[in-house]
């Protein structure tokens, strides 16, 4: 057990201070093999954001990154530099496929002060950004690209550099706008999955439902089931599910929440008399099944890229809070008839199931008495199943993920996590933060737990006791050393 005190940024700031959060400066992808000779350097660049940057500057920046990586490789051949710290910014390097490099440059947060003579003084906060957080963000960029486009190599095989460049341009042009670098934190490192708590019987009913659906829609290869944006079942392997989950919960679902709330395209459909009423609808694919012109185009995703390399249609279908993803081999042409059939089979059953789950969930909540808000603020993560639980983060919105604690505390969590990464042993770190806050980090086997406590005049022993209590109530059914 290690205890340390950190009086983090508690100083009172002058009223005229301005703060600027971290921001994306540039983002580029290159392959040094594509332009090895002098004068051909431009060929190396596969994607560059912002595109407006003058050609020579692009070449210079890429060359610099290349040089840094090459230089650090001499010291550590297997692990070259991951990031470069400068006063104004940080650069993150990632080589997701051999010789393909992705670089993300993030500007450090800035505080702009008013000097006595009225001139603004810009102060870069060099130590604010956490390497692990932004390296993870960069890796996620690649994973997300790969989910919808397949590997870089595959694009090269299919249509050479030209095709790869097109795909990169098409994807990252939009995707980079959705990066919210100012609100990245520990959860981005974990890239975890929130699982929906459920009793055994309801879970088995869902299993039964999935198996029946896969049987009657016999072309379905994989199915995933979510409730309330939380995962219940994944037929996909863990790594693929992790990134699909990220896409669903941070992009697809939030996009559909607003229309639902606004009451547009009301999901109750009673057009067909005598038809079973249900609340099912497609989140991907056709919007209106009665429109004979409706297009049955679904997003394509790529999974198991390391071995079988499968390309699949992604059908996301939702009824109330329950969402099912059906994944079908991309070589199969999906017709409007199929969509109608799916709607008529899945819709009614999913509607019933969704209300079952809701009912059961409320019963369980009442029984366990957990409807009261937990007093503890904590983040839990299990590397084995990627299960993640946070009482610190509010519900994710498409724009930002809100936390209920001060960013300084979040930074301490990130620091503790970095410490945990350095050693394999189980350990525990307790930090006394500003005002009355205590931050506790525990690592037991593959699990990590971070707790933020706010108790007046608490001492180390009391804090330790509190955390023990939390473990006993929240994590009593797992093996968690104390």
């Amino acid at each position: 057990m290690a205890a340390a005190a950190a009086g983090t940024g508690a100083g009172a700031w002058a009223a005229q201070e301005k703060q600027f959060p971290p921001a994306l400066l540039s983002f580029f992808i290159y392959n040094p093999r594509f332009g090895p000779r002098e004068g051909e350097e431009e060929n190396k660049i596969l994607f560059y954001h912002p595109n407006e940057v003058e050609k020579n500057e692009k070449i210079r920046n890429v060359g610099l990154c290349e040089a840094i990586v090459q230089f650090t490789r001499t010291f550590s051949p297997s692990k070259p530099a991951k990031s470069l710290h400068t006063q104004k910014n940080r650069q993150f390097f990632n080589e997701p496929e051999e010789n393909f490099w992705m670089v993300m440059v993030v500007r450090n947060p800035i505080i702009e002060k008013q000097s006595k003579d009225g001139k603004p003084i810009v102060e870069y906060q060099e130590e604010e950004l956490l390497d692990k957080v932004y390296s993870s963000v960069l890796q996620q960029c690649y994973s997300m690209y790969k989910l919808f486009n397949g590997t870089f190599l595959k694009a090269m095989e299919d249509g050479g550099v030209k095709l790869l460049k097109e795909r990169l341009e098409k994807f990252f042009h939009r995707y980079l706008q959705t990066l919210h670098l100012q609100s990245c934190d520990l959860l981005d490192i974990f890239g975890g999955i929130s699982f929906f708590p459920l009793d055994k019987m309801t879970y088995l009913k869902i299993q039964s439902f999935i198996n029946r659906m896969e049987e009657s829609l016999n072309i379905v290869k994989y199915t995933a089931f979510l409730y309330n944006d939380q995962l219940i079942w994944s037929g996909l392997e863990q790594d693929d599910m992790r990134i699909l989950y990220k896409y669903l919960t941070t992009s697809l679902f939030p996009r559909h929440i607003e229309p639902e709330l606004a009451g547009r395209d009301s999901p109750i459909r009673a057009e067909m008399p005598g038809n079973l009423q249900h609340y099912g609808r497609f989140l991907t694919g056709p919007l209106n099944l009665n429109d004979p012109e409706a297009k049955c185009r679904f997003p394509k995703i790529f999974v198991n890229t390391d071995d079988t390399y499968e390309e699949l249609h992604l059908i996301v279908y939702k009824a109330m809070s329950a969402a099912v993803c059906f994944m079908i081999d991309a070589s199969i042409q999906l017709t409007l008839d199929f969509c109608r059939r799916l709607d008529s089979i899945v819709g009614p059953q999913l509607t019933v199931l969704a209300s079952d789950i809701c009912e059961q969930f409320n019963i369980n909540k009442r029984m366990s008495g957990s409807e009261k808000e937990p007093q503890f603020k904590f983040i839990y993560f299990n590397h084995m199943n990627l299960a993640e639980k946070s009482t610190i983060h509010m519900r994710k919105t498409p724009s930002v993920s809100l936390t209920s604690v001060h960013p300084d505390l979040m930074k301490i969590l990130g620091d503790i996590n970095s410490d945990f990464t350095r050693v394999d042993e189980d350990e525990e770190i307790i930090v006394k933060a500003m005002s009355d806050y205590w931050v506790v980090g525990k690592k037991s086997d593959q699990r990590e737990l971070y707790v933020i406590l706010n108790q007046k005049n608490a001492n180390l022993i009391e804090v330790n006791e509190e955390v023990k209590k939390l473990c006993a109530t929240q994590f009593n059914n797992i093996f968690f050393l104390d």
Partner: protein
Amino acid sequence: MGEEDYYLELCERPVQFEKANPVNCVFFDEANKQVFAVRSGGATGVVVKGPDDRNPISFRMDDKGEVKCIKFSLENKILAVQRTSKTVDFCNFIPDNSQLEYTQECKTKNANILGFCWTSSTEIVFITDQGIEFYQVLPEKRTLKLLKSHNINVNWYMYCPESAVILLSTTVLENVLQPFYFRAGTMSKLPKFEIELPAVPKSTKLSLSERDIAMATIYGQLYVLFLRHHSRTSNSTGAEVVLYHLPREGACKKMHILKLNRTGKFALNVVDNLVVVHHQDTETSVIFDIKLRGEFDGTVTFHHPVLPARSIQPYQIPMAGPAAVTSQSPVPCKLYSSSWIVFQPDIIISASQGYLWNLQVKLEPIVKLLPDKGRLMDFLLQRKECKMVILSVCSQMLSESDRATLPVIATVFDKLNHEYKKYLDAEQSYTMAVEAGQGRSNPLLRRPVRTQAVLDQSDVYTHVLSAFVEKKEMPHKFVIAVLMEYIRSLNQFQIAVQHYLHELVIKTLVQHNLFYMLHQFLQYHVLSDSKPLACLLLSLESFYPPAHQLSLDMLKRLSTANDEIVEVLLSKHQVLAALRFIRGIGGHDNISARKFLDAAKQTEDNMLFYTIFRFFEQRNQRLRGSPNFTPGEHCEEHVAFFKQVFGDQALMRPTTF
């Protein structure tokens, strides 16, 4: 029609008796199910054969006139013979009792005896055209004592020995039935009821015929079955059988109507709680099951035949007799012959051929004739000999060629587990009642009978699932879906799932490298915690590292596996973690120091060894007042190692007060 199509058959070993002819009269006693062959009024011999006794009873009696009726009392104690319309003669068959005949005349003046029924080994009822008389026979005194009598006009009567109920037909139309119930020397009159006769033109006088009434126990309840013939005036499409429920207490109530959809001559049997209706014109039979869902109109339930009409399976008359004739080929028996007489519940007699058969239902052919698996299960679960047939239905629906859809499989599992759960509940409440000491005070308390319809997890595992998962050609998705469906069904009925089923799931998942699926199942506790399961998971660690964590979690939840947890941690060289765990649960005073020191030494981490060594020194100090290890702890080697690495002065000094 293939042989597998017949679902009714005559029993293989019929009771054989001498054919009826002018000198040989044949009688059948429904109570004892005995056939009496009386030659020349008994003078040249009486032979009595029952279905169970292979040794017939033979005796002679004097020819005192034509025998009208002859029956043994229960247990063959006393023989009663009616030769006149006023009297019944008795003869004791009890050893040491006089075998001289004695006679009882009916008490009511000018009454004629219609017949008599034994209700126990010494109690007899005379039915006369003017009422009934209930007697006790005193064999040693060779007299009868009148217990009770009742005056009522009687057209005809019917006796159901299983329920000891006699039904009397009264009134001009013969359709008002008066039941009496007999038990241990008492006779009770039950409420009378009227059978509704079909409406007919006033010109024709229609009365209720004895031939159209039968009494039988179906699913433990007594029913009066009335064969209502098709009447041209009504719109009905054919004859029907109307079932009146006759309870011990309360009024008789019309409950079920079996639609025959045909007209002509019918006969009824009840076999294995099924009503069998034979139709002579077409020489076929149909069966009805009143427990299967029918159409309920608010008062009665209408039923249709469970299966298409089929003939009874063709029967070859075995050529018994002298060895010389056995070479003759067996003779096909004429089925549905007009000489057949049918008795309840399941007896068919051919007096002219000298055979008595029990009718039987064959279940295997029904499987093919009833395509609706849910209905088939409902039907089979009510049958006596259903277990192997049900198991074969289960295997069949999981086979490549006859594979059923998952919803059907789910329905079948649910029906099986519904029966299974009913039995488990009954067994549990019995056990609880016995433990509460109610066994002696409550005579009604009986251990529940386990019928063949109770198919437990081991049956399904042994006969169906274990073979099913071995089939290579089965897609693994289907195999897992079926196993999960069975587990879901068990859970739905709150039946604890046996760990061998969980093992089967794990084995199948592991075989197909579906570890992530397994992980998710465990995460939601679908596979219940148990030590064997935790050990199985541990063994999977080399294929799937997260299995280690899953196993430890499971052991932790079991809360009885703390020793195992320590062993697992020590085997992983997590000595400190093991020690902290055991300290956390307060077990650190009882652990072996040597085991932990051994493990610490193996890590070759001297600081760890120091920490562990110091911990035990402190324990010794606390428990025994000295930090030294006792010889019984066998730690000399470790003390020497400690000294060697850290020096003598590093050993803890005993604290003195």
